């Protein structure tokens, strides 16, 4: 725990005249769950995609620390090296499962793909590992040969998680992982994510507009607006004692049940 796992420095991303992210800096420490909250258009998803290497930033740095102490600067990686890292050390959970899954191959093949990318070769081992992971995300392993399109939305999202975690990544990026799901399905997914994070000691950057989700999953929060960080702190600090006018407005707008 002597160095951050991920260091983002002065990251800026523009789309034409619009600045989606402006001078964003933060560190992520091993085992930490960092929430990035803000309304639509605040730049939080663009930030996540730049940090995860799905888009390239215009300015700034993203440094990742490997176990052996080496520090990798994302922008210096070749395309294949970046893709290898995204499939081994990292994972990305999309809000829409169809962006993270291959809908035209079976659930088992979806999980197996990452294992093959990690040099697994024996078919029987891959299949039994896929079964194990279906169970870990509470999907009946009898559904292993079915196409993801036959799954419900909540199951698809859990399958996407299994597909991503099967290669034991250290760092997981999540973009609104519970967005668009029924609340009962959402509760189950939150519980699942929390257990997996603890079990595998994952470090997570999670983007959400739902402050209740952020509260339950993350230990630290960043509040974004118009591409900038407005406020940051421990999750309970930001939600119970927000300092900026914007954070106070966000927190006071949460609906009570």
């Amino acid at each position, binding site marked *: 725990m002597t160095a951050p796992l991920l260091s983002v420095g002065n990251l800026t991303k523009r789309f034409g005249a619009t600045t989606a992210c402006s001078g964003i800096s933060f560190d992520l420490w091993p085992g930490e769950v960092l929430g990035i909250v803000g309304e639509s258009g605040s730049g939080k998803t663009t930030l996540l995609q730049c940090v995860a290497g799905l888009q390239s930033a215009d300015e700034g740095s993203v440094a990742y620390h490997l176990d052996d102490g080496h520090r990798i600067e994302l922008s210096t990686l070749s395309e294949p090296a970046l893709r290898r890292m995204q499939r081994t050390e990292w994972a990305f959970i999309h809000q829409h499962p169809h962006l993270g899954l291959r809908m035209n191959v079976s659930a088992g093949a979806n999980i197996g793909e990452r294992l093959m990318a990690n040099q697994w070769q024996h078919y029987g081992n891959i299949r039994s590992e896929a079964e194990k992971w279906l169970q870990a995300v509470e999907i009946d392993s009898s559904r292993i040969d079915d196409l993801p399109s036959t799954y419900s939305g909540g199951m698809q999202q859990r399958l996407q998680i299994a597909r991503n975690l099967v290669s034991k990544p250290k760092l997981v990026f999540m973009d609104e992982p519970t967005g668009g799901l029924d609340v009962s399905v959402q509760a189950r997914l939150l519980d699942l994510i929390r257990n997996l994070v603890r079990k595998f000691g994952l470090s997570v950057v999670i983007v959400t507009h739902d402050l209740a989700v952020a509260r339950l999953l993350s230990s630290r929060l960043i509040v974004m607006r118009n591409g900038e960080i407005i406020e940051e702190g*421990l999750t309970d600090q930001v939600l119970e004692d927000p300092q*900026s*006018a914007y954070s*106070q*407005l966000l927190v006071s707008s949460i609906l009570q049940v």
Partner: protein
Amino acid sequence: MHSILKITKLQKKFLLHNQNGAVLDVLRGISLEVGEREIVALCGPSGIGKSSLLKALYGTYRVNGGTIEYWLDDQWLDLTRATAREILNLRKMMIGYVSQFLRVIPRVPTLDIVAEPAIELGESEEAARQRAADLLDKLRIPEELFSLSPLTFSGGEQQRVNIARALSAPRKLTLFDEPTASLDPVNRRTVLEMIAHLRESGNAIVGIFHDARDREILGAREIDLSIQDELSHA
């Protein structure tokens, strides 16, 4: 007696941007020391800043002035200048907090919620769950409820789950925000006994106990926040 917590000239203001910039000047330079195995009761009428002080001690409220120093690993750590990671570590190693509200993920069983802090401190799942069951049993939560989410429980049951959770991992200081508020006399008695036992096992306690009899039973040192302006000049 060694102090484990030293509060010096603590100030907390709330600036409410969306309510015409209103300012609430809640803590005005209060100083206080808490020793090992000491029970301190914060007193005074509602709105005087008792809960705010507890939340400042836990690091949830960011303060405007003064220091909050904890004796951790043979040195003083000032919470008001600590990084987020240092605060999380301080909480994990040293501070328990029993709030008035239970905040948990829906559908997670009560036993898991109570056992969680001990598991996070590295205790085996089996031992943590066993102690969780013992604590819940002591607090008269029927075993049939262990596997259910506490979100469907009554207010008094939720409060006892909250207390059990806080007691599941050993700390050096436990903060209690009205732990006996919605309890019947029998459970109230039990909770007070558990707090007294907590002190005997080496914990210090800072709490809000509305009932003067509770404070008396616990032998608490009373700090009256309604005279905090005098306290701060002492």
